[in-house]
């Protein structure tokens, strides 16, 4: 079990993470979603114990995580910088990872490198953006760390490479269950892999739920303005659009099937929302100008 209690991370006057409480059961794949600047990377840095929270604590199996070697050995955090020396060759980077990690699987690392057609003789500095990301994925997956955190590890990867990445992630998770936290902006292509989704907005956790509970949770109701408005009474409205006498409202459901059937008989049209559209509606509320405190 991983627990965050009142975790706040501030950079000067800017609050990146604002009093986050999260309880994360282990051996689960989590998707961390949020807009740019919503605090995802800061939250993940605290989760990985790379950064001491300004306030609050992170507990891994009940133990304080920060500067705790027992916890650090069990965490693999793959972020943009990769935390490797640019002048090293890829094969040296992989060999070092093997020396540092008891759970490292060198054969699997070699298999993944082949799969991505990653030239391990190259220096890290010579890798393209996509190849750097592939190296990150190899480091993250082959570490088989009980807590594996992949922060936007797909950057620069083409559609084929991303598909290979998702396939490997799932297959390796099925044979070696562990806790994986993956942050992404490409919600639609990877959401099926997430057991749970965490949505951050402006430093706070807006939502933490089973991914499946979000499918069909948002509903768009379209029809004559007066009827739509009457139907929406009592529901949270996420978005609206009007054209002439027609109104379309996006509601935070789920809706009672009997209400929907009645609405359809009255001439209303209903359309369920995908996860990405729900995410856009939930996180596109106007941002206050003053983001600091």
């Amino acid at each position, binding site marked *: 079990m991983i627990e965050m209690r009142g975790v706040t991370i501030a950079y000067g006057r800017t609050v990146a993470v604002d009093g986050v409480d999260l309880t994360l059961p282990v051996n689960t794949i989590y998707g961390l979603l949020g807009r740019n600047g919503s605090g995802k990377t800061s939250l993940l840095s605290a989760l990985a114990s790379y950064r001491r929270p300004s306030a609050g604590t992170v507990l891994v199996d009940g133990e304080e995580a920060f500067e705790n070697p027992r916890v650090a050995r069990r965490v693999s955090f793959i972020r943009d910088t990769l935390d490797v020396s640019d002048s090293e060759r890829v094969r040296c980077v992989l060999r070092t990872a093997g020396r540092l990690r008891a759970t490292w699987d060198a054969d699997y690392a070699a298999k993944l490198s082949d799969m991505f057609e990653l030239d391990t003789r190259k220096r890290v500095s010579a890798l393209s953006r996509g190849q750097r990301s592939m190296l990150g994925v190899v480091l993250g997956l082959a570490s088989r760390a009980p807590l594996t955190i992949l922060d936007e590890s797909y950057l620069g990867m083409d559609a084929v490479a991303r598909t290979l990445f998702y396939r490997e992630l799932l297959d390796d998770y099925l044979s070696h269950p562990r806790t994986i936290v993956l942050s992404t902006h490409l919600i*639609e292509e990877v959401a*099926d*892999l997430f*057991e749970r989704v965490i949505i951050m907005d402006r430093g706070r956790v807006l939502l933490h739920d089973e*991914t*499946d509970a979000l*499918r069909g949770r948002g509903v768009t109701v379209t029809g004559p303005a007066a009827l739509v408005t009457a139907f929406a009474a009592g529901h949270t409205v996420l978005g609206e659009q009007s054209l002439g006498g027609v109104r379309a409202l996006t509601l935070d459901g789920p809706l009672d099937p009997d209400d929907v059937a009645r609405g359809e*008989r009255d001439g209303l049209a209903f359309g369920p929302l*995908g*996860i990405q559209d729900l995410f856009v509606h939930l996180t596109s509320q106007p941002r206050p100008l003053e983001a600091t405190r």
Partner: protein
Amino acid sequence: MFHDRSPIYLQIADGIKNDILTGSLREDDQVMSTNQYAAFYRINPATAAKGFAQLVDEGVLYKRRGIGMFVSPDAPGKLRSERRQRFFAEVVEPMLDEAKRVGIGVDEITDYLGSRR
């Protein structure tokens, strides 16, 4: 394979029920394991497990400890009678609504159905 406008676990349950109704899954046939299903359809195994759990709850599947999950002997009959009950409400009524919108009378529909007998 799955769309994201309704929970995948319900889509899984519906898919297996359809396989039973069409006869591609028969009484006492073993269904895929949760992990096989997850790997095949590229979904999280917990989501797949929830779909199967739903079918066990409904009595469509039964478990044999350590072996796997199987189609209940009475599942085809039960599913067929459920679908028959919903047929008029879910299939015929919407058709009548559409007929009314485009000006097709019940007599015209009856004639058509008579010609298909």
